[in-house]
């Protein structure tokens, strides 16, 4: 069954919600400015409701299915987050209202800055970046400007491991810098010799995801960061995989100088079908002057100030203060409008307040335990190879869709067949350095029972691959549509109903 588009459903003369009758006199419309037609659909409210409810039913989400999409941390999103972010005191707040009117929201931002700094060990945090990739851009632009500020204009290269997310090299290019790709070692970590060979005074810094996209913690992280620092470079930490280590280790303690958080991953804000995210960036003190602004800061109020004034806070020492917007002195500038994806920040704030330090640690512990348990079952019972499978993995691991006795079966077939078992497939064909990659991240919110059901399905699929391979080749059988022709989409380029 296909669902017609809003245009197919349109019926001339129907309309949705009405506005109040115009209560001012009509003004003449200006000549030479008006459009003739507006090709939007004409639907009744029920048409709209049925259409989008039906569309929603053609999706898998965390709330409906296990969704072990590697590197995306598809954990359960607590509903209280939604309630908090939906409070009128936040949703009806205009970003350009005077600071006196928005002290509560600013306090939430200030506290979140402090919490994220504490969790990561950094000295300062900006909440402005709208997503992880924008956090990367923020971080790399800061690294570049820091080096320029020191007169190190010859530094134009960023070192990026070959296992990195594509955003790392893309960010580097966007920042006007050159990418130097570093190979991985036989242990699945960064090749230290290759790092040393490339570290000279042309290097702005290294971008490192730790744990990396293979789900492996950098065993020699302290040596790596020390080497980069000795060469005058900075270390960027890609925080995409923070869920593995939150509450366990502070990235700044490992020698990371700047790192983005993915609040939609580690801190449980909904992924929204592809966004919004939020990508705050934490930095060590020497980079703080380069942060994008404005950031919230505290202004102490002199004693003789009228205490009757509204919105004055008192700190622990009883001194008066209020919150103001502040532009750091050597800021790279604004990376987006206003202060960030505020609604997402409210959700992350709520989540952190509910967990506290012990709760955050339990997140990482359970995420890593879940991943290792699932990995063990797949390795032992289903003979799926796992890249660097002899090591303990962190929050995720990379299995391979390579099954003995089933030479024609590929990762894509396994992924599609998983849909028939009611599971969203893992991330496929990434990282690029692993053949037939199936990157599996169960997250801490899944139960052993769910993991067992998934492992059982993978085991069953391995059996089908050998005995009834067409079951996999023709999969999915039970999804709203069968396998879609991506080649046709790219060649025909039908991008809208116009």
């Amino acid at each position, binding site marked *: 069954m296909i669902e017609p588009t809003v245009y197919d459903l349109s019926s001339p003369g129907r309309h949705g919600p009405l506005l109040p009758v115009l209560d001012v006199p009509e003004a003449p419309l200006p000549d030479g400015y008006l459009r003739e037609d507006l090709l939007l659909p004409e639907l009744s409210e029920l048409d709209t409701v049925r259409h989008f409810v039906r569309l929603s039913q053609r999706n898998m989400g965390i709330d409906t299915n296990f969704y072990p999409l590697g590197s995306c941390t598809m954990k359960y999103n607590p509903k209280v987050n939604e309630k908090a972010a939906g409070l009128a*005191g936040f949703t009806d707040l205009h970003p350009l209202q005077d600071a006196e009117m928005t002290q509560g929201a600013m306090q939430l931002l200030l506290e979140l800055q402090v919490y994220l700094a504490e969790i990561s060990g950094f000295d300062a945090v900006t909440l402005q970046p709208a997503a992880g990739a924008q956090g990367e851009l923020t971080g790399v632009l800061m690294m570049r400007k820091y080096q320029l500020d020191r007169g190190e204009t010859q530094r134009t290269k960023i070192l990026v491991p070959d296992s990195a997310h594509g955003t790392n090299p893309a960010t580097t290019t966007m920042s006007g810098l050159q990418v130097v790709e570093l190979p991985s070692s036989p242990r699945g970590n960064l090749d230290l010799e290759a790092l040393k060979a490339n570290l000279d005074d042309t290097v702005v810094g290294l971008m490192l995801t730790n744990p990396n996209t293979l789900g492996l913690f950098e065993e020699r992280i302290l040596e790596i960061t020390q080497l980069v620092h000795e060469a005058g470079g900075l270390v960027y930490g890609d925080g995409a995989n923070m869920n593995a280590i939150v509450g366990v280790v502070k990235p700044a303690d490992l020698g990371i100088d700047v790192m983005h958080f993915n609040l939609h991953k580690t801190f449980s804000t909904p992924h929204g079908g592809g966004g919004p995210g939020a990508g705050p960036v934490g930095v060590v003190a020497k980079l703080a002057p380069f942060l994008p602004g404005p950031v919230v800061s505290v202004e102490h109020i002199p004693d003789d100030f009228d205490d009757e004034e509204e919105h004055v806070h008192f700190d622990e020492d009883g001194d008066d203060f209020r919150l103001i917007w502040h532009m750091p002195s050597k800021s790279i500038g604004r990376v987006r409008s206003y202060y960030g994806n505020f609604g997402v920040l409210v959700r992350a704030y709520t989540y952190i307040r509910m967990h506290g330090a012990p709760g955050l640690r339990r997140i990482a512990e359970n995420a890593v335990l879940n991943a290792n348990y699932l990995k063990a079952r797949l390795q032992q019972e289903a003979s799926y190879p796992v890249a660097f499978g002899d090591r303990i993995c962190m929050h995720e691991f990379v299995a391979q869709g390579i099954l003995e006795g089933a030479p024609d079966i590929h990762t894509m077939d396994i992924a599609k067949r998983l849909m028939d078992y009611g599971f969203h497939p893992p991330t496929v064909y990434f990282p690029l350095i692993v053949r037939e990659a199936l990157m599996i991240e169960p997250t*801490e919110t899944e139960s052993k029972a769910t993991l067992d059901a998934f492992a059982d399905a993978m085991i069953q699929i391995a059996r089908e691959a050998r005995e009834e391979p067409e079951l996999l080749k023709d999969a999915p059988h039970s999804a709203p549509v069968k396998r*879609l022709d991506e080649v046709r989409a790219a060649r025909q380029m039908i991008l809208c109903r116009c």
Partner: protein
Amino acid sequence: MPFIANTDADRDAMLAAVGLERIEDLFRDVPEQHRYATLDLPEPLSELEVLREVSALADENDHLGELASFLGAGAYRHFVPSVVDFLAGRSEFYSAYTPYQPEVSQGTLQAIFEYQSMVAALTGMDAANASHYDGATATAEAVIMALNSATGNRPGGKGPRKRVVLSPALNPQYREVVHTYTQGMGLDIVGGDLIDHDFHTLLELVDEDTACVVVQNPDFLGQLHSAAEMQDLADAVHAAGALLAVSVDPISLGMFTPPGEYGVDIVMGEGQSLGNALNFGGPYLGFFAMRTADVRKSAGRIAGETVDVDGQTGYVLTLSTREQHIRRGRATSNICTNQALMALRACIYLAAMGKHGLRSVAEQCYHKAQYAATRISMIPGYQIVGEKPFFKEFVVRCPAPVHVIKDYLLMEWGIVAGYDLVDDYPELGECLLLCVTEMNTRQEIDDLVEALASVAEMVEDMELELVRELEDVR
């Protein structure tokens, strides 16, 4: 913790299966001296407690739900029909991620396709993408796309074009973000500080090195440019081999000429107005529409229509080879996560309001803004700035410092007056940018007029002491 399902017994069984004794053994690759660092965070809270705390913070804000507001300047209060919250609140939508597996993501993909279709229809362009972070970053991405797209046009093989011309009437925050995004690209960005906002002055900056010109319509000060005027601008920009990008208010397109009809190459802007709350500045969405010829040079996700093996219509993410996960260091943008949920809200909004609804929203904004401006212009001491027609925003030159007026209106009248232009456009003098939408009742507008008149009277009656006093309090 309510969000972790495993019991101690589960954990013991799982550890045994992995062959470890203690949870701590899982972290043996983490340098021991840094493992289990102390975190100084507030104590964990229950759901009830956290709601109390967060509600207290929310209550400390003076939000626009409780006040009459004439503040816009890039973020707008518009009516959001109930269906938007209800439908976008379906967790099958919001708890999904990027539709990498199309067969189980048809809901998200079809919604993106419909969003793209309606944005293309609204702007009169060939195609639209699935969204950027906001209007500012959509503008920066438009500039970067133009730099890549216009490169080949430069005569004599002199290498890539490096000049970007920004209108001074482009939202100041958008101009800032363009500077931030491109700071490593060695560009020559000009125009933002021009005092004269006339297109002819802007065009004097366009040379053979220019990749693009970026303007806003209606501009940041509310002024509308006619289709003919825009067409002349587009022709002149194209004659120089550059692209023209226009930031638009999508609500204005409910009644005004779509940019696709006046020769523009890129249309982008802030999509917050389309069914999204103010949210203290985010999450919003940047919409982005273009010509077919430029699609492969553009950034961001795009959904396309195709068929499955049985020939049934379905949707996939397409043209992904432009994106960072495939092109890596050769990609022109690093964007990955976008604002899909906000685009879904925009999609539902446009579908629900539809052809007639959007037009009536636009017309109500227009008529109410004209009514407000006409009445304010009759108050002695106030002057409407600008000769051109305007949509829902306009500039008023005031008889007293704008911040003094704003404070007085808020304290005495409960009115959020508008945006003080003195920092962004000091040359204008004491000017206030007012915004009137369908959310403002006639009563609110009449109150605003009365309040402004009382300011004028105070100034007239030489009650400047009061004005100064108010300034001192500030």
